[in-house]
């Protein structure tokens, strides 16, 4: 039983959880919502219904980026 190695990003850090477990269960356990992340298991993107086998390496990759996405301040068109 190697457990499931989980790589989190932004900042990069690693932790381990007992496997096997479902993708949604993992996200819930770590407090992520599906809409905000991708789950990559051993280098392959997986859907929400996938099961993560013990011994796998998982990356939870956030997809939400911030920054100035709005239009220009008033007075200077765009």
């Amino acid at each position, binding site marked *: 039983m190697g457990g499931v190695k989980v790589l989190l990003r932004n900042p990069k850090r690693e932790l381990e959880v007992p496997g096997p477990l479902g993708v949604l269960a993992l996200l819930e356990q770590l407090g992520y919502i599906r809409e905000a992340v991708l789950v990559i298991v051993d280098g392959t993107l997986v859907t929400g219904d996938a099961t993560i086998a013990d011994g796998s390496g998982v990356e939870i990759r956030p*997809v939400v*980026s911030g*920054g100035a996405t709005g239009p*220009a301040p008033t007075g*200077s*068109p765009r």
Partner: protein
Amino acid sequence: MKCKVCRRPAVVDVRRHNAAFCSDCFLGHCRAQVERAVKEHRMMGPDERVLVAVSGGKDSLALWDILLDIGYQADGLYIGLGIAGYSQPSGEHARAFAAARQAHLVEVDLPSDFGYDVKTGAAADRRVPCSACGLSKRHVFDRAALDGGYDVVATGHNLDDEAAVLLGNVLRWDVAYLARQRPVLPGGEGFPRKVKPLVKLGERETAAYCVLKGLDYQVEECPMSAGNRHLGYKEALNAIEERSPGTKAAFYNGFLDRGSALGAELCQDEREGLHPCPSCAAPTTAAVCAFCKLVERAGGDPRRRIPVTAL
């Protein structure tokens, strides 16, 4: 889950479409959404020269990749913002993409070309960093597009970005901003046309696109983005989306369908009173444009030429 199109095992689920896709069909889906957006909003013609605003992040690289795949003559413009720990790796991702696709990347570096960076510019002009950054990027893109003879500037704003901005504008009922929040801003009077071909794709989709296409992008966020207001709006929208998938798209698309009459004239009025900035020639309503003010306050030189080769 099985691919909605070909029934092979799926790798991505898109809950708002109540669908899952295999890798090939998903890449096709993304391309189709971009083609639809371009067509629906008449963003650009097949022979027009496109300048893609490239940050090295998922959205701009996915956008550039898709436009090239569709067959557009699309060059990239990367702006070095001088942000420690972020600008350098971002630039490397942009360069690596350009090299791999044999695409043309124009580079402008705020510190070496204009003599300031986002942080010093923000402090000198008493703005938050993202405001100084946004102002600088807009100016450089406009200039570069006009100097380089490009027909249109394409930016990587996705559905999530637009929905978050819309929420912010609605919360403040900022009619002037709402008027300007469109997938296409026409050019003219010193402005290039600007288009957002990713408005039908969420950021989860653009990220998945990059992963499946093997495009290496800047995953770690810009350090200045922490606490950004738009991030808060995105979080709020995602919490709603999680319970009722499709909310973000309905919110934004409903605005485009029904809410955008709201400011059509305002958009016109805004261009009255514009004249070229005496220092850099960019259109402005002020005595000196906001970009020149910022750069001068930060001790840089706003008049530096942007090294764009007109083709």
